[in-house]
């Protein structure tokens, strides 16, 4: 897939974030999880916020969630590439008080049809050495 952003900023991959940014190569979205108490931790920091265990591991999630919020960007930060949709996706493994949320893009849905609460699923866009999670509507 051709990258819609001519000069996309990419993450600096390091030992802490590597799984999050690269597990898409295997078609999986991996989020850090505490193996002692089960809490999901994002962004990855290597320690559990809940029980302070350092026994945490990148763990595959379903890749499904709902749109918590969104915006249609019109400002030409990247030149004249048209509008695009930024979404906050609350993954289904999270809860209301401890949402498991990632910022991403919604691809393939007309801007006027995007809505909070819409069910979405992950897919991946490879850029150099990272696989960016992207989302599409579950129809």
């Amino acid at each position, binding site marked *: 897939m051709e990258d819609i*952003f*001519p*000069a*996309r*900023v*990419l*993450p*600096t991959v*390091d030992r802490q*974030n590597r799984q999050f940014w690269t597990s898409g190569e295997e078609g999986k979205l991996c989020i850090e999880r505490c193996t002692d108490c089960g809490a999901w931790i*994002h*962004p990855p920091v290597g320690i559990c916020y809940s029980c302070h265990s350092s026994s945490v591991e990148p763990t595959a999630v379903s890749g499904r969630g709902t749109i*918590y*919020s*969104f*915006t*249609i*960007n*019109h*400002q*030409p*930060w*990247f*030149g004249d590439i048209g509008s*695009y949709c*930024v979404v*906050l996706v609350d993954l289904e493994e999270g809860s*209301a*008080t*401890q*949402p498991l*949320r*990632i*910022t*991403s*893009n919604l691809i393939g849905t007309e*801007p006027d049809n995007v809505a*909070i609460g819409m069910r979405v699923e992950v897919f991946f866009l490879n*850029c*150099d050495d*990272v696989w*960016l999670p992207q989302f599409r509507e579950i129809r």
Partner: protein
Amino acid sequence: MTGHVKHRHRSERDAVISGIGQSDVGRRLDRTAMSLTVDACLAAVADAGLTLNDIDGLSSYPGGLMDGLNPGFGGPGTDAVQDALRLNLNWHSGGYEGPAQIQALINAAIAVSAGLARHVLVYRTVWESTAQGSGGRQGMGGAGSGGGRARMGGMLQYLLPFGAVSAANWLAMNAQRHFHTYGTTRETLGEIALNTRRNAGLNPKAIFRDPMSMDDYLGARMISTPLCLFDCDVPVDGSTAFVVSHRDYAPDVPTTAVGINAVGTALHGRPSWDQRPNMEESPLRAAADTMWARTELTRADVDTAQLYDGFSIITLMAIEALGFCAVGEAKDYLKGGHRISLEGELPLNTAGGQLSAGRLHGFGLLHEACVQLRGQGGERQVSGKPEVAVVANGGGPVAGTMLVTRGAS
């Protein structure tokens, strides 16, 4: 959740703002950040009735290392200014992490109270308009600029790769939540934008002074839904400075000393653009609660509010976080714009705010609070000799707030 810290002694009341100063403010002034800074600093020191030999403390936000984030965002750090002016300092501090821009003032007040310094010069300089040139506002971290793909670590690595390259994008999603949950509309945000434009018409230094109607607002081009052009502040070049002195200098202040009655510095929850569970609410809430817990003053005592307006939605959430109305009720509170007008019960951003007067990044709002309390507002002066002003800064991932008074508190 941590409770409020109860103090018999409130250190901030040991300090007053003894002088204020501001450089020229404008679009693409083509001046260096240092020259703007020195203009503001010298003006503030003179305004306080002091000379540079009296200055023994220096404080700034965001420190000298931040221009890499966004061109023109940082301005000179305290080491650079100390050296440029060859100051002899007993205390100095500049940095980014803390309760938003106003932390530089709060730190200065605490340093004065602790006896580390007697007269602290505090400044904030932006030169984004010149630094970002004529091509319009840039995305952060080099997004969209020529050449190859840039790399980013830290918190922004989870935002920038998705084209969420500006606070306009991030705060648009707070606004979208507020609209969704509470039925807030673009007209509600428009009242904040229109109010700043009305006030800017009375401020000779403001950037955008032409009248604006609600139709003008609603017809403006979208930046990032639901935020349009007039929901976003205006990048400018300019520097704002204060002198924070021990309160026993207050009788010698040539104008009127401005008291620091209470500060709000709390951070509860996650300091993040996208990870707070309830994005309808500002992180200012915790800081505001701690501020109100440190004062006998109440919301009814506040004569003017100078609330951060990098984006209109921040101001809306600040009005709610400070308790001028309940969370979700801004659409009623702001209806028609009467309450926040110069003649209303809570005159808001009376110099035109960042939306119309220019993005002095929080410091312009505190400057205006001092102008109003000193009775120097000219055509835009709030009537009835205002005695208490509330100032809020930040409101994205973190926030800080301050109650200031005419005369020492």
